[in-house]
């Protein structure tokens, strides 16, 4: 068959490196779009032969955006290997640092990476459509974004001593040092501002939604299942709890699944054209068992948030969906803002808990089990670390399922839908292609498994005919 391919390589303003291939039929309509991860890092192999307690440190190096989530998933898997129940204060402090992580990562995704698209304009001059353009045109919004991100980063710094890769503090069995009242006060001092920024930006985003109403139709709006962690009461959860899966009508199809037995219900498929695996819900098979994770999915699976302001906002959010389930991928942004609000409220709740300041923060033990699974909700979705060790604790095998992987099938569906809506014929329009990128940014991939770019061209789209002849090319 006569086929043409458009390539967006690399996709810009995302974390990591990926490309998009859009395949056109003879008549110039989009046949299929693929989201491809172009690099390979192999952390699962690197860690073989290393001591289990090094896993948090090694694994967190996968990503500079959300190292804390990797640290926590790895540390939880190591807690399993130690077979200890960690002190309550350690759980609270780990939750607190994770709140900081989610706030900073969501703020990065929303303000730094995506806001230029919907504030400056998806068709605007690409040289201005970035954080610097945002600073120029909307300095107040940019400042708010930077301040909110810094609030999250500082929580991490106050607890762990460093903002990025604070791998000495989170240890198997708990955390290394307790939280002092002085540091707690320093976190509190910025709390009100952070809450104000989050609330203001939710209002701003609702205005944007009104304006974009027409554009949002078929903008990554498709039925999938949703997966996320919940508390025992079914509330929003990021650190512990159980897995719940709901369908596109809001029906719970699986509840209180043990995250440690993820392999019983999550399968991983492989496609020859991407380094990223394709997880699916096993009972429904591949590819029917497509599900989404991340902020939108978490709000879809949770019965409620569990904090007053976030719960109020969740009610508004649910009105945008059917039966309380929101399908539109663009609304990941809205979900992200609600989660920021939730996390800020949770920060206060944790700081007000006297148990947070207990000196007992580290349960020490040696290897008692030879296998451990750690699961947390990273900013981008469910993150699973699984290790097997020998009797001394040397890692012999490991498996990671990162949040972006869960969404892999969804990425491909979303970009296909958006490409079909906007791209026709052989001429390429940068603004239309940016819509394909924008939907990827809404899902907020973290592809930092691919951090080394060797090409200075930020965007290179090539249109080939069936014989490999270049029909059109656009670089910037």
């Amino acid at each position, binding site marked *: 068959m006569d086929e043409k391919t458009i390539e967006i390589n690399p996709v810009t303003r995302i974390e990591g490196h990926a490309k998009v291939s859009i395949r056109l039929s003879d008549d110039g309509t989009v046949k299929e779009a693929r989201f491809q991860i172009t690099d390979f890092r192999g952390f699962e192999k690197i860690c073989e032969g290393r*001591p289990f307690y090094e896993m948090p440190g090694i694994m967190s190096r996968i990503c500079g955006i959300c190292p804390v989530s990797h640290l926590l998933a790895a540390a939880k898997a190591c807690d399993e290997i130690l077979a200890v129940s960690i002190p309550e204060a350690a759980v609270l402090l780990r939750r607190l640092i994770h709140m900081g992580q989610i706030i900073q990562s969501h703020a990065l995704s929303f303000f730094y990476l995506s806001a230029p698209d919907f504030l400056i304009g998806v068709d605007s001059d690409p040289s201005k459509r970035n954080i610097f353009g945002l600073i120029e045109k909307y300095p107040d919004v940019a400042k708010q974004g930077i301040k909110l991100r810094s609030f999250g980063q500082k929580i991490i710094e106050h607890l762990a001593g460093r903002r990025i890769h604070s791998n000495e503090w989170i240890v198997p069995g708990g955390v290394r040092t307790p939280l002092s009242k002085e540091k707690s006060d320093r976190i509190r001092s910025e709390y009100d501002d952070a809450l104000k920024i989050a609330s203001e930006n939710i209002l701003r985003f609702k205005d944007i939604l009104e304006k974009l109403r027409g554009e949002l139709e078929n903008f990554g709006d498709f039925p999938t299942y949703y997966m996320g962690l919940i508390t025992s009461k079914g509330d929003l959860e990021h650190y512990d709890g159980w897995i719940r899966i709901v369908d596109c009508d809001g029906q719970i199809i699986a509840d209180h699944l043990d995250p440690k037995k993820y392999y019983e219900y999550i399968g991983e498929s492989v496609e020859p054209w991407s380094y990223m695996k394709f997880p699916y819900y096993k009972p429904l098979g591949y590819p029917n068992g497509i599900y989404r994770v991340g902020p939108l999915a978490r709000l879809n699976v949770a019965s409620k948030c569990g904090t007053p302001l976030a719960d109020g906002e969740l009610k508004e959010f649910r009105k945008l969906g059917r039966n309380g389930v929101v399908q539109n991928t663009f609304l990941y942004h809205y979900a992200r803002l609600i989660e920021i609000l939730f996390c800020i409220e949770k920060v206060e709740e944790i700081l007000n808990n006297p148990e947070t300041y207990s000196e007992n923060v580290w349960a020490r033990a040696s290897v008692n089990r030879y296998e451990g699974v750690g699961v947390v909700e990273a900013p981008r979705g469910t993150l699973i670390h699984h290790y097997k060790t020998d009797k001394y604790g*040397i890692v012999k095998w490991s498996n990671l399922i990162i949040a972006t992987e869960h969404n892999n099938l969804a990425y491909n569906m979303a970009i296909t839908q958006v490409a079909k809506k906007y791209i026709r014929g052989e001429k390429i329009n940068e603004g239309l292609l940016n819509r394909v990128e924008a939907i990827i940014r809404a899902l907020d991939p973290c592809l930092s498994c691919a951090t080394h770019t060797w090409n200075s061209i930020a965007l290179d789209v090539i249109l080939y005919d069936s014989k490999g002849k270049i029909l059109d090319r656009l670089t910037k």
Partner: protein
Amino acid sequence: MSVSSVVKIKIDGVEVTAYEGDTILSAAKRASIYIPTLCYLDGLSSYGGCRLCIVEVKGSPKLFPSCTTPVSNGMEIITNSERLRKFRKLTLGLILSEKPHICSICVANGHCELQDLAKEFGVDHLRVEREWTAHKIDLTHDFLVIDHNRCILCARCIRACDEIEGVHVLDMKMRGKDSQVIVDMDEDWASSRSCTSCRKCARVCPVGAIYVRDKPFSEIKDKEMAKFILSRRGL
């Protein structure tokens, strides 16, 4: 000390009084002249293994390890020259390329003597291909760990074990790049009957090769330990 045992030398153009039996390094230290070292540790015997403390001696084309070279009357020594810096940098590069050293995930990161020296000499790239062979990690001991992937074969642990603790549990097997620190007759650490678990090996290790599990590296390390113990013994 008799007058006859006094020797006069010049280090970097400065006249320094030393004594017979002094090494160039000890004379320089007394005169507060800095010579970089790695395998050398105050309180332990000199080993001359790392070649970081090389100096030039006037009248000889050779370079001398200052930790093992005795002073002699009239010696003129240069401790810092373009040539020396070049060789020291090369030596550090060779040490770093011999094992898969990855600072970011090492327990010693930020408290590592090799890392400090690499910074001092500007080793930001390696000119020889790195050796990526994975080496064994002995996790069998209750709290002491030896990770051969990080060992630079400076033999400080072996000397501390022998000369300070007096048990000589640790030693070196093989030669050249196959050299490896061993416990007793190359056994697992847990099965050693002679190890007293004194942790001195971990305290003197300049890198993250021997360490105490679950302890921050800054707490384990004690560069002055050997010197301190010997001074208490009146040695």
